[in-house]
């Protein structure tokens, strides 16, 4: 192995370097220089994210344990930029007196989960996959319990860590069964040796269950709403975009490499799960009054939609999934950005408090409106194309009834997304949230999100590129 091989892990190495620098900078910057420290760290992460855009070679190192290619790099870029946006949105919360001292801790925990996700996405071996998964989960529990003086936050942390540990136990039992059948832990080799025996089906079901907890598919979704509500709002947006996106991606890789020969079985499995996930996610979202719980159930329903691309096990399906994750990142982060600006300014997190919001803060309500349109899938914004491609992918495989149910559910989801817009634009209130001017990083992040929503919807080049890189991935499997 030569030096240039090590550079294949460029993204993770840079993130590790950034983490170490931030750890030292936390000590160097004095207590009254927190703002400078914050800008310094965000700048470092910005550099890492920009470096990811430069072309990188594909290949594998450590005997095939770590694999990288166009699609993996694409996915890592999406995750890097969403982390950057989440951090930009966090300044309003960081600048509160209680949090000032602890910005460094937050950054380091956040970056270590990002490193874990990078290794998880690139893994070609179950050991690397498991290590990356745990590195991505354990610090997240610490982040969910970050507001240590609030019992809600501790409750969220408990629910996350216990269920994460339990689900990875189930996942590991599945891996041990696959190891028993094949005698190897490499994705590629195991995929060739799996023959459809009962034991391998049991292994598939257990591994799928373990991953479903991370993606929060129904019936493994029960932790989602509680953890999302209890965590600090910026951690919630990180959980719902970055953590979920990476889990969906690795699920896609594992199903298409290790269990490629059991295709028929997991198609049936996912078929049922999609139907109950989108239906239950939608029906529960209707009755939520807290904006974080509302977005939690909406994200469960969106996870169901993402699986429509997984069920079509072709290069096109993979491309639709990654494209949808990109669009979902912009729309969800825009919605969470507005919610977190309001929460940092006034501490209000209930949808009823948003009455008359358009009268006092027209620009923020317009951003929220675009985000809701995109999540619901209304044409001019990118969300429409994301859903459209997912439906095409499922229809190509011949699942017309499934697509019909998904379309019906889109209509149901339109009701509750528009409900938020109605509250903000039409309903009057005696004491609406007063006008406030959000801070500079928040403004930048919202501008990025809105531009992303419009531009990814109107340029076809993004999707074409994704189809091309997923073709590469599939030809190598």
């Amino acid at each position, binding site marked *: 192995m030569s030096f240039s091989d090590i550079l294949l892990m460029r993204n993770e190495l840079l993130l590790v370097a950034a983490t170490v620098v931030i750890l030292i900078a936390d000590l160097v910057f004095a207590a009254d220089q927190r703002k400078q420290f914050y800008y310094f760290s965000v700048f470092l992460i910005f550099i890492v994210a920009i470096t990811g855009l430069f072309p990188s070679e594909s290949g594998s190192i450590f005997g095939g344990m770590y694999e990288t290619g166009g699609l993996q790099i694409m996915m890592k870029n999406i995750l890097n930029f969403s982390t950057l946006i989440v951090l930009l949105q966090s300044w309003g919360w960081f600048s509160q007196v209680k949090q000032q001292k602890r910005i460094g801790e937050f950054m380091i925990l956040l970056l270590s989960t990002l490193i874990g996700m990078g290794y998880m996405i690139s893994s070609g071996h179950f050991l690397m996959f498991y*290590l990356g998964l*745990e590195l991505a989960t*354990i610090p997240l529990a610490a982040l969910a319990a970050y507001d240590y003086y609030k019992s809600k936050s501790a409750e969220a*942390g408990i629910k996350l860590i*216990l269920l994460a*540990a339990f689900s990875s136990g189930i996942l590991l*039992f599945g891996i041990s069964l696959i*190891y028993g059948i094949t005698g190897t832990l490499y994705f590629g080799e195991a995929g060739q040796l799996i023959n459809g025996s009962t034991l391998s089906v049991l292994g598939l079901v257990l591994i799928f269950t373990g991953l479903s907890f991370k993606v929060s598919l129904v019936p493994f979704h029960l932790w989602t709403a509680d953890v999302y509500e209890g965590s600090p709002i910026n951690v919630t947006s990180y959980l719902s975009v970055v953590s979920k996106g990476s889990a969906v991606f690795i699920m896609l890789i594992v199903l298409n490499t290790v269990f490629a020969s059991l295709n028929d079985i997991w198609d049936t499995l996912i078929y049922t799960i999609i139907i109950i996930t989108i239906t239950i996610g939608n029906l529960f979202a209707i009755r939520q009054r807290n904006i974080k719980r509302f977005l939690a159930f909406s994200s469960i329903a969106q996870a169901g939609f993402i699986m429509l691309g997984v069920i079509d096990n072709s290069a096109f399906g993979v491309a639709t999934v990654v494209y949808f994750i990109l669009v979902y990142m912009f729309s969800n982060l825009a919605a969470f950005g507005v919610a977190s600006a309001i929460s940092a300014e006034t501490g209000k997190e209930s949808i009823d408090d948003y009455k008359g919001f358009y009268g006092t803060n027209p620009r923020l309500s317009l951003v929220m409106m675009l985000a809701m349109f995109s999540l619901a899938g209304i044409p001019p914004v990118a969300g429409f194309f994301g859903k459209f491609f997912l439906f095409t992918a499922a229809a190509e495989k011949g699942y017309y009834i499934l697509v019909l149910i998904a379309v019906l559910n889109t209509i149901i989801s339109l009701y509750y997304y528009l409900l938020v817009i109605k509250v903000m634009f039409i309903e009057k209130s005696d004491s609406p949230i007063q006008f406030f001017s959000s801070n500079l990083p928040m403004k930048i992040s919202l501008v990025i999100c809105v531009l992303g929503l419009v531009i990814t919807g109107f340029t076809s080049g993004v999707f074409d590129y994704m189809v091309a890189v997923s073709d590469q991935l599939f030809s190598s499997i």
Partner: protein
Amino acid sequence: MIEDIPLSHILIVSTLIFFIGVYGFMTRKNMISMLISVELVLNAVNINFVAINRYLYPERLEGHFFTLFVIGIAAAEAAVAIAIFINLYRNIRSIDVDEVTEMKY
């Protein structure tokens, strides 16, 4: 000699431990007991890996290595979990799951 014991016996024990762990996780009310149940699940996995490696694929050591990593990560997980338990105890003076119901539905 260990070869006198067939592999199926060991796998039956590990499967039993796995399901005892799952059962305990579902029924226990005390969070420490729930954490112990999770450790049982992980230990069932460890037994599986070691036994399968020793009996079926003795020429390679992947299973043994995996076990070592699982033990290490389980310790990290327990440390974070217990830190959060202590934090919760400071807030509500209890680590019973029936008391942790501030958020529901």
